[in-house]
């Protein structure tokens, strides 16, 4: 159940239905090596195993065989100057097993980041050079608009 208020469940009543769930789930890169059909998620701390299973099956249409969860303790850090301690929030990790014929490998999101950055820098340099040329040309006639001469 999400964080909303629902009536108390009594035996024989219809099952509670969540219409607007506000749980979040994020797919995280596994820290340890895992079988191809196991996916790691960080989920809302209130979520149960059943919630994770239903969430994936109903919203994302992903077949789920098994779910195991654990709550990972947030890192504590001591401030270098004042010595007080801060702690990151605890997070629930769900290890979701899909059927054997399914697989998932975490994609490399920044494979061609460097290439793109180089291209961007090159175009930036070119435009900088163009502006410098324009300034050089207009040294003796400051304030002249760009369309005045070729």
């Amino acid at each position, binding site marked *: 159940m999400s964080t909303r*208020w629902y009536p108390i469940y*009594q035996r024989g009543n219809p099952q509670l239905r969540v219409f607007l769930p*506000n749980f979040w789930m994020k*797919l995280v890169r596994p820290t340890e090596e895992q079988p191809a059909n196991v996916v790691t998620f960080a989920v809302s701390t209130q979520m149960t195993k059943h919630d994770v299973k239903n969430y994936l099956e109903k919203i994302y249409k992903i077949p789920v065989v098994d779910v195991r969860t654990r709550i990972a303790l947030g890192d504590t850090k001591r401030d270098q100057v004042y010595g007080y301690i801060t702690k990151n929030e605890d997070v629930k990790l769900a290890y979701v097993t899909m059927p054997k014929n399914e697989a998932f490998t975490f994609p490399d*999101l*920044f*494979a061609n*980041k460097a290439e793109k950055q180089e291209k961007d820098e090159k175009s930036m340099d070119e435009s900088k050079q163009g502006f410098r040329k324009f300034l050089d040309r207009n040294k003796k006639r400051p304030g002249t608009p760009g369309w005045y001469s070729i």
Partner: protein
Amino acid sequence: MSATLIKCFNLAKAVGTGAFRNALATSHSQVAAWSPATVGSLLKCGIHSNVPLQNEKLMEFFDDPKHWSETEVKVGRAWRTDELRIKSNKELHQLWYILLKERNMLFTMEHECNDKMEVFPNPERIDKIKISMENLETVVRERNKAYHLLETGETGERPQKQIHNAFGLRCNYKTIEHVLPPFMNTKWIKAQHNTYGGRAVHKFLLHYREKLYNVKRKAKNRSRNEVMMTLRRNPNIDLQMLKRKYPDVDIDKLLSQDKTRGHYVTKVDA
């Protein structure tokens, strides 16, 4: 084959030799029916199905691949309540799930960017989603309230009331449904902390109220002194404006006091 044979032996042990013979006979007939061609095709099928398929549905947790190496991802604004009010319930329901998936996607991307020491492009997307979801919920709540009021005469919201907590401070209490009515639930009656008392709490409340009073008193003195100094420096100031600016200060009383007079000789017209 061997597995079926073992099964047959186990069965024979359990049931008797008659059943064992029958099972053996069926297995033999099956072997005879399998031609090499069929076996080959089966094997091929087996190999083909053993290769696991990359799950495409899980890629919904990631942004569009063309945005992966971008430094800026341009998006529109959040949904407003007025826009959501003209949508049907079904459309709102669908939109909620779209927003939910988008938020999960953004969370995943943010987490991965943080992990890889990269800059997450346009983090305000998460805020936009949050605003949209809040607006959507308010619209749904409005409709729910209207429906409940029409049908039952109550808002259908979770009942709340103001109570004193264990420290004697007023706080909001959201009521919870219980299986037992309160007079029968003796355990709950014993456990409830909605009352306060004792010397420590009394002392705490005394100090706490003194603190609150001091804040109020200092604010009052500050504004009075401000008015006083303004009057001293600017004898011809617009009094109506001052009264509007400091409604709590009694300016007429201040004017009669010596403190509002400046250290100069008043100019007398000849």
